[in-house]
Structure formats: structure tokens, C-alpha cells
């Protein structure tokens, strides 16, 4: 009984120190580096599966896939040409309006090497760190949309907090009309919630949400999610708006770290 009391007191002391001071962060850093090989080891099954899928695929299928990707690349390049024309036009119009120029972002490809084993904490470990120019607060994306932001940076790896973590919130706007709100995580990979949405707000089911860029943390215009349901409970001032995140938060392996041009940049970053 005495032992459990001592352990309990020690645990509470540690928790208080960890929550309210940064004294224990060196220990966290050391332990995180020690735990990294375990993350690497636990990823072996998925790497083997990936390797197997690539190496056992019939040649005909690979050729078919290659042809499809070539076609897709052509289509995307065509669209890109159209986009650059639109971007130039947008810039001209912004200059006419004396508005601030939108910054172009550069990106760096990274791979997920570990996922938080705690279901309540939505974090991933990626294989880029301080050596690659990664910094705390840096946004990360996958092919579908905004994934989250970097919270801890180590020499060769970093930890990112996903947008669905219950402690995460990001400013968004409706793509259709620009209505602004805050999207919060719910500890569920498939659901986010909008905070303080008035019943008179012009938000509809199916509306696409993008990052609004307010707060300066996330760049403007990256897809965040789609509004899936709007419910008003009797007696409540605000409506409950549920959002389905665009990014494949629990599936994506390859991510993009976003660097702002004019800000910090990485050596291998692509533009």
C-alpha cells in the first residue's frame, strides 16, 4: 500500500512537471531517439508487404499501370499549364487590387515511419528531421489534403500532430463562399467538428473546406475536408457540423512537408 502511494505521488509529480515545465523535454528527446528503432522494426511487416506487392505484380499489370500513369501525367501537365495561366491571371488581378501576393509553396517528400500506438493521440513519426530543414509548426500534406503539423523535431526524424487529434484546431473557410470557421479534431480519423457555427451561417452538407491561412500556421487553400452533416440540437446556440477530412490520415505513407518560399527552405525541397 505504501509502495503504491509513493509511486502515485511520484507519477503525479512527474505529470505536473511534464505538463507545466519544459524540464523533462531533454528526457523526452533522448527516449524518443531510443524508441525510434522500435518504430522502424514495427514497420517491417508493412514494408515487406509493400515490397511483395511490387515484386510479385505480373509484368503485364505493371505495363498497364505504367501506361495509365503516363496518360495521367500528361493530363496533369496539361492541367498544370492551365493552372499556371490562371495563377498568372490571379496575380495580375491581385496586383490590380493591391492585395498581398499569394506565396508559392515548396514541398519535400517524406515517409511515415511510425504511428502513435495510443488511439487517443493522433501523431505520426516521419523520416525527415532538423537535418532536412524541418521545423516545429511546419504543415504536412498527403495527396488528398492537409494532414497536420510538426510538433517535435529531432536530428533525423520528426513527430507530426494530425488534424484529427482532439487537441488540434485549424482555421478553415468554405470554398464556395469563404465563410470562416475553426475545425477541431475529435480523436476519430474520420470526423472533425466545426466550432461555434451559428444556425444562420451559410454552410451546407457537401461544402468543401480549405485552410484559410489565418493564424499564419497553415498555408491558404489546401483541402481540409467536406461537410458531412449539420445538426441543430434544441436549446443549443450553435449547430454541430461534422466534417470528413480530405486527407487519408490513417492510410497515407508518403507525405509532403510544406516550406514557404521566402521562409525556411530545405535542400531537397521541390517547387
Amino acid at each position, binding site marked *: 500500500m505504501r*509502495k503504491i502511494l509513493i*509511486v502515485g505521488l511520484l*507519477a503525479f509529480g*512527474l*505529470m505536473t512537471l511534464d505538463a507545466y515545465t519544459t524540464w*523533462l523535454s531533454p528526457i*523526452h528527446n533522448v527516449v524518443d531517439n531510443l524508441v525510434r528503432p522500435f518504430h522502424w522494426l514495427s514497420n517491417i511487416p508493412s514494408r515487406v508487404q509493400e515490397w511483395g506487392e511490387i515484386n510479385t505484380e505480373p509484368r503485364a499489370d505493371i505495363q498497364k499501370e505504367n501506361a495509365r500513369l503516363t496518360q495521367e501525367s500528361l493530363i496533369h501537365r496539361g492541367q498544370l499549364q492551365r493552372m499556371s495561366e490562371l495563377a498568372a491571371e490571379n496575380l495580375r488581378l491581385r496586383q490590380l487590387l493591391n492585395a498581398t501576393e499569394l506565396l508559392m509553396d515548396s514541398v519535400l517528400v517524406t515517409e511515415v515511419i511510425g504511428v502513435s500506438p495510443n488511439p487517443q493521440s493522433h501523431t505520426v513519426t516521419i523520416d525527415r528531421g532538423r537535418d532536412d530543414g524541418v521545423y516545429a509548426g511546419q504543415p504536412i500534406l498527403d495527396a488528398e489534403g492537409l494532414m497536420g503539423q510538426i510538433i517535435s523535431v529531432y536530428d533525423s526524424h520528426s513527430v507530426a500532430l494530425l488534424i484529427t487529434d482532439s487537441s488540434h484546431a485549424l482555421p478553415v473557410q468554405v470554398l464556395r463562399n469563404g465563410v470562416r470557421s475553426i475545425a477541431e479534431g475529435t480523436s476519430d480519423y474520420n470526423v472533425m467538428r466545426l466550432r461555434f457555427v451559428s444556425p444562420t451561417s451559410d454552410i451546407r452538407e457537401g461544402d468543401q473546406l480549405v485552410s484559410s491561412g489565418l493564424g499564419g500556421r497553415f498555408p491558404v487553400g489546401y483541402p481540409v475536408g467536406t461537410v458531412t452533416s449539420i445538426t441543430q440540437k434544441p436549446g443549443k446556440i450553435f449547430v454541430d457540423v461534422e466534417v470528413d477530412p480530405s486527407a487519408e490520415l490513417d492510410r497515407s505513407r508518403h507525405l509532403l512537408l510544406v516550406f514557404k518560399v521566402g521562409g525556411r527552405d530545405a535542400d531537397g525541397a521541390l517547387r
Partner: protein
Amino acid sequence: MIAVFLQLVPSTGGWLLWKPNFLLLMVIAWILYIPNQYGIGFAALVGLFADALFRTPLGHYVLVFALCGAVAYLLSRWLTYFSMFHRAFLVFVLVILGELVGAALFSIWDIPKNLSHLHILGLTSAIAWVLVDRFVARIHLHHR
């Protein structure tokens, strides 16, 4: 090592909520089988490691593991004579206790915790216990 490996193997979406806490299961197993060597201190140490692994505030899992370890330690004298079913039931109860204590601690820091999956987590842990129990029993027998 195997417990850490199983704990870290990525699982997706809803499955993650059902994933048993293999570290806790290993702690309970060692305390039940060798209570004179492994006790509350051992549970607290593994808890500290779990804190580092789960990136929770240091001390969180120390308390959860120490509490579950203490219950397992107190009952260890009798439980070795009980059937697998009874031990699995104890694990079910301990996992739920651990989750509730964890949720209470999270609430101190204003972090909401979803407890809707609690019974399923208890059930999957009890099922996983059957394997963990057999594994530890075999090692224990081998070392004796």
C-alpha cells in the same frame, strides 16, 4: 520486446481503438507468474517506458500500470490456481480499470477521451490474454 513490437505495429482507424495494450498484458502476466521478482516497481518502470512510447505526459502510464500491477500483485497468490477463463476475466476488469484511470488523468489536463470502445477493448485484451498467458507460462516453466 515482442509486446513493444505488437504495440507499435501500425493498425488503421477503428482497429486502433480495439488494439489491446500488450505492454499492460505483459506486466500483468509477469506479476501473476513471478510475484516475488516482479511487482509494483516493475509495473511503474514499464509504465514510464509506455509514457515515452505513447508520448503521454511522463507519469500517466506509470500510475495506470502501477495500479493495475498492484491489483494483479495482490491477487497473484490465488490467481495462479484459477482457470484461464477467470484470469482472462480479471484482465478484462483490469484493462477497463486502467482505461478509466487513464481517462480520469487525461481529464485533469482537459484532454477528452473517448470511452465508447471500452468494453470491446476489454474483450480483445481478454482474448489476447489467452496467448500472452500461454506464452509467459511456457517461458516460466522453461526457466524453472
